[in-house]
Structures are given as structure tokens and as C-alpha cells.
């Protein structure tokens, strides 16, 4: 039952509450092509958010943070593309990816209405929540469900780097107050 699983992940990402993930973990496992699609989508979302921030952010720290996000997420996604090519896997679109994309475009539109310090605050707050949610999903769902060892290892590297992003975002958020 992928639908139930993906609904749980999407809900968790929206509410930034990884607790919700655990209820579905035993029964619903995404496949490797779905995991690859979700991970790649999650990266693209943060890249787009960073591009928006590069245009709109006022604070030097926020601009630097956005630059870091762009650099790292592009690097991870480049690796992900190289891996799916090597493994001859076609990433498969799924309800989780769709829910994530929909939610992200809503957020982009919402942030687009803000300017200056208000934008900076909202962008960084969302980055904290977003990385928290993605890390929760990686830890409790995507990594344990991945079958291929190389995919699992890439997700683990991703988790490590995104945990750093979360801390960095929390630090920037605290400085903005």
C-alpha cells in the first residue's frame, strides 16, 4: 500500500512531524525507483527554494546559506542521476513525490509575496522544518526501505549532509531573531 505510506510521509513533511512516519513503516515500503524519485525531488525542491532566496534574501548569512544549499543539493542530485544511470533504474513518479512538489510550489508562491527581513525569516524557518522532515523520512523510511547498497549509501551520505544543513539553518534562524 504505497498510497497510505506516501500520504503519511507527505503529511509528516507538511507538519514536520516524523512521528507520523512510524505508524506506516512496517507495512508500506517504497521501491528503489520510487525512493530515487522522492530523494531527487526533495533535492530539486531545496534547489528551487535556494534560487528564490538568492534573488530575494537580504541578510548576508541567508544568502550564504542559500548558496550552500544550492551547491550541496546539486552535488547530491548529480550523484543520484549518475547512480540511477549506472544501475539502469528509471526513477518512478509516485504520490509522495507529487505531494512534495505540490507543497513546495505552494511554499514558493507564499514566500514570493514576502520581502526583505520577512522573507529571510520565513525562508530559513521553512528550511529548518523542511530538512527536519526530509531527514526524518530518510532515517525512518527511505534508508531502511532501500534495497540497493549503493542507493542506501548515497541516502546515508545525504542524511549526513542534510543534518548539517538543518543545524546550519537552525543557527541562521537563531541569528535572525
Amino acid at each position, binding site marked *: 500500500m504505497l498510497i497510505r505510506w506516501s500520504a503519511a510521509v507527505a503529511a509528516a513533511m507538511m507538519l514536520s512531524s516524523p512521528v507520523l512516519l512510524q505508524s506506516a513503516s512496517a507495512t508500506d515500503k517504497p521501491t528503489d525507483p520510487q525512493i530515487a524519485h522522492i530523494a531527487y525531488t526533495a533535492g530539486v525542491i531545496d534547489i528551487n527554494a535556494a534560487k528564490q532566496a538568492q534573488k530575494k534574501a537580504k541578510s548576508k548569512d541567508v544568502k550564504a546559506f542559500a548558496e550552500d544549499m544550492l551547491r550541496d543539493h546539486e552535488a547530491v542530485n548529480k550523484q543520484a542521476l549518475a547512480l540511477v544511470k549506472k544501475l539502469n533504474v528509471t526513477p518512478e513518479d509516485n504520490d509522495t513525490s507529487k505531494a512534495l512538489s505540490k507543497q513546495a510550489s505552494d511554499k514558493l508562491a507564499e514566500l514570493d509575496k514576502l520581502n526583505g527581513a520577512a522573507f529571510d525569516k520565513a525562508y530559513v524557518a521553512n528550511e529548518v522544518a523542511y530538512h527536519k522532515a526530509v531527514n526524518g523520512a530518510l532515517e525512518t523510511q527511505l534508508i531502511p526501505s532501500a534495497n540497493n547498497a549503493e542507493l542506501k549509501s548515497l541516502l546515508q551520505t545525504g542524511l549526513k549532509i542534510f543534518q*548539517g544543513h538543518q543545524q546550519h539553518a537552525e543557527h541562521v534562524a537563531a541569528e535572525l531573531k
Partner: protein
Amino acid sequence: MRSGRLFSLPIALVFAAMAVRAHATTIEITMENLVISPAEISAKVGDTINWINKDVFAHTATAKNGDFDVTLAPKKSASSILKKAGTIDYYCRYHPNMKATLKVEP
């Protein structure tokens, strides 16, 4: 005379060893999977540090005291020569969780 000769070889070796130590050496510090290793290492002024980035991410080796700030592109290496003695804590500006210490002896 005989005994003098016998002693001379080990003494020469000791001097040779000292001469080698006095020469600058190259020390490798690797960044892989977001970890700097070795996390702690000693070097001497004049030694060269060869920074090796094995990750697909860009990293930096940035001294907290401002002594050095090396930027490493993904999968690239760079080197720097140690000019000042001291215990230097450094980190990656992009990934501040990556931390290590370099002890530079005079």
C-alpha cells in the same frame, strides 16, 4: 681506531635521521564522507599539508584563528605550507560539523 669506526656508523645514522627530520615533509589530510581525517595531527613549521577532498561536495579547511582558509572543489586537492606554530582548530565553512585540529610545532 677500530672501535672509533664501529661507532661512527650508528652516529652517522643518527645525524642522517636528524637531517631528514629537519627537512620539511608533506602530510596528507583527507576529507571523505564529511569527515576530516586524521582529526588530530602534528606537523612542523615548513611542512606542507596536502588537502585531499574525496567527496562530491566542495569543502574548505578554515582555521578558526585565520591562519589559513583553503577551498577544495569536489574531488580535488590543494596544498599549503605551514608558516606559524600553534594549535590550530579548523573546520569546513560549508559543513561546520567537519572539525579537526592541527598542531604545528616550531
